[in-house]
């Protein structure tokens, strides 16, 4: 296994070894898989075997023989957020599996103003491709271009970047809306009959992709044949944390004492925050929520959600990290990669089966 660097590599590697303990193939057991693997490319089956329960759909068939010094860098927006922590574990595991170097920096709590400085720090490793999730990447485009480094935007497209990998927002939102519609349809026949239904999309006004996601949620909801009396999109603000979700939802519930609410949350944090607000207000019978992400925070919410969360669109954060590495390798080779739309929904019934390690 080729080392990432320093202390974190030891942690990352041990974590990866644990994750891969159940793998059938032995291809990644050797110290230098890329060098020892021989000709050809890794197949989807190889990836499926290697990622086990994370069940990653590959976006690029990576050659087994890669340049020795292929070097990547990822600027993580917030390792304190479980989605991005899972993503971090995912790209580290992929870097190990494919035998590339990967260095990581953390913006702390979404301190996007520091992105260029963090890039400069990582630039001493001379990466081929750098990845970042940021709503303000223009300066980074100039910097990376000046250095001849490829910028692979992650999650939020950056104008002028060399590439983008993220979930297709429209399809993701549509799926969430459909799941939500399925969840509330029986209620509309029964307890919610005759009550005013409000669609609520929890996104970040500052980040258009998140708004597209939740607005597509409304589209999917309506496409499933349900017409809410109104649709509202309160702003989660800068970081979209659990606390933000709770705060926004608590106020929203106060402002809508008699209505019933169908909620699409842009991420698990906002959805779980909203759930807590609903429980605190005792409005369990009036609200149904679908979240997007299915990270640890989201999945564990099923344990105590009073049946409010009808489903979580599985963005597979760990897999998203893995796939960023595949896409970065493709970009370094000037080859195409394909972004699949999410198709898996996590519910209280399948969560234990799909994420047995939780």
């Amino acid at each position: 296994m080729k080392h990432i660097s320093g202390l974190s590599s030891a942690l990352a590697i041990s974590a990866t070894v644990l994750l891969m303990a159940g793998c059938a193939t032995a291809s990644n057991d050797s110290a230098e898989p890329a060098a020892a693997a021989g000709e050809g490319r890794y197949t989807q089956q190889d990836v499926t075997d290697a990622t086990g329960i994370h069940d990653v759909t590959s976006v690029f068939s990576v050659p087994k023989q890669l340049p020795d010094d292929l070097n990547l860098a990822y600027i993580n927006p917030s390792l304190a957020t479980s989605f991005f922590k899972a993503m971090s574990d995912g790209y580290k595991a992929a870097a190990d599996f494919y035998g590339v170097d990967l260095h990581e920096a953390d913006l702390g709590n979404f301190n996007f103003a520091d992105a260029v400085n963090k890039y400069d720090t990582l630039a001493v490793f001379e990466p081929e491709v750098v990845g970042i999730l940021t709503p303000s990447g223009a300066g980074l485009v100039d910097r990376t271009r000046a250095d001849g480094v490829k910028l692979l935007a992650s999650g939020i497209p950056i104008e002028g970047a060399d590439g983008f990998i993220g979930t297709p927002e429209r399809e993701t939102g549509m799926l969430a809306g459909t799941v939500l519609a399925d969840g509330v349809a029986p209620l509309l026949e029964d307890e919610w009959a005759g009550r005013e239904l409000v669609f609520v999309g929890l996104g970040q006004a500052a980040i258009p992709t998140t708004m597209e996601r939740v607005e597509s949620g409304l589209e999917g909801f309506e496409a499933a044949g349900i017409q809410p009396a109104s649709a509202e999109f309160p702003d989660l603000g800068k970081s979209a944390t659990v606390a933000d979700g709770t705060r926004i939802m608590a106020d929203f519930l106060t402002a809508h004492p008699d209505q019933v609410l169908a909620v699409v949350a842009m991420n698990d944090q906002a959805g779980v925050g909203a759930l807590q607000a609903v429980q605190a207000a005792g409005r369990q019978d009036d609200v149904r929520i679908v979240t997007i992400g299915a990270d640890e925070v989201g999945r564990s919410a099923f344990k105590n959600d009073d049946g409010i969360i009808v489903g979580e669109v599985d963005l597979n954060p760990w897999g998203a990290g893995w796939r960023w590495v595949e896409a970065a390798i493709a970009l370094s080779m000037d080859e195409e990669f394909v972004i699949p739309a999410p198709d898996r929904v996590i519910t209280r019934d399948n969560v234990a089966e799909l994420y047995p390690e939780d």
Partner: protein
Amino acid sequence: MTATTVAQQGTPPTSPPPKPKSDPIDRILDVGIYIALGVLVIVFSIASPYFLTVGNLLNIGQAVAQTGILAAGVTIALIAGQLDISFGSVIAVTAVLVAVLTGAGLPAAVAVLGAVVAGLLVGILNGVLIVNLNISSIISTLAVGTAVTGAAYLLANGQVIPLPDPAAFSWVNVRVFGLPVPMLIAIAVYVAGWVLLAKTKLGAHIYAVGGNSSAALRAGIPVKRIYYTVLVISSSLAVLAGVIVLGRTGAGDPSYGAADMFTVLGAVLLSGIGLGGGTGSVQRTFVGVLIIGVLANGLVLLGVQSYYQQLVNGAVLVLAVVMEAIRRKRRSR
């Protein structure tokens, strides 16, 4: 009553009392930050082959420029006895205002002028609350800062506003003789700050006002004007930092500056300035800024998980506060 005994004791001193000297512990506290910086540089140099390279050191210089410029302003205000924590909001409003104004078709220079005016207004507003309404500086600048951040969000409509013409600010990313422009600006700010505080009458009065405002007032020093001056210096430097952030990121984001609170106050506190006023220097703050910058850089180079980075940063801050507590305790003996 036997008053004559007093007279006998009142003969002039035969030998001068020893000149008061700072004892070893005070001196260790004084040089502690230099030692800390030296140790960090040595440790990181050994641990990472990348650390002690020209490119990386310039990166550190570039990265600390923004923190450094802010910390210089905070230091000057703090020497006068005012803790100004509104700098983050000035960064946000500067970045957003310039992005909005250039987006509306105004030339970059005019947009920056608009931000300068906004910065001056923030400084003056801080002054009105602190000087005229006699509200403590931390509360005043917190309140003003919160309001200004709100205004920045309002102005940006909560959005990140990309610069229509990032080229107008690309000078921020230029290197002159191999040195990043923000670093050169920061160096200029520190030289100017040092001259101001150590060499000018205004500087002497800043120390005097911070050390004992009523004494300064009785000595005829225009105390209120000094307060206004330092607050405007502080907010103006925050505008400068905001322009640099804008040039670096190419966009105006109302969330900018929110994360600078820790690094800036950490650097300032590390310098051992204390919160009482009347002491401190920009040179020492500069060392504090470097410590924070070297830590941030070195820990990333070593691939240390950011949780540990936060832990280390927090520990550094605790150390700074403890050192200050020891210092104060010794002073009050």
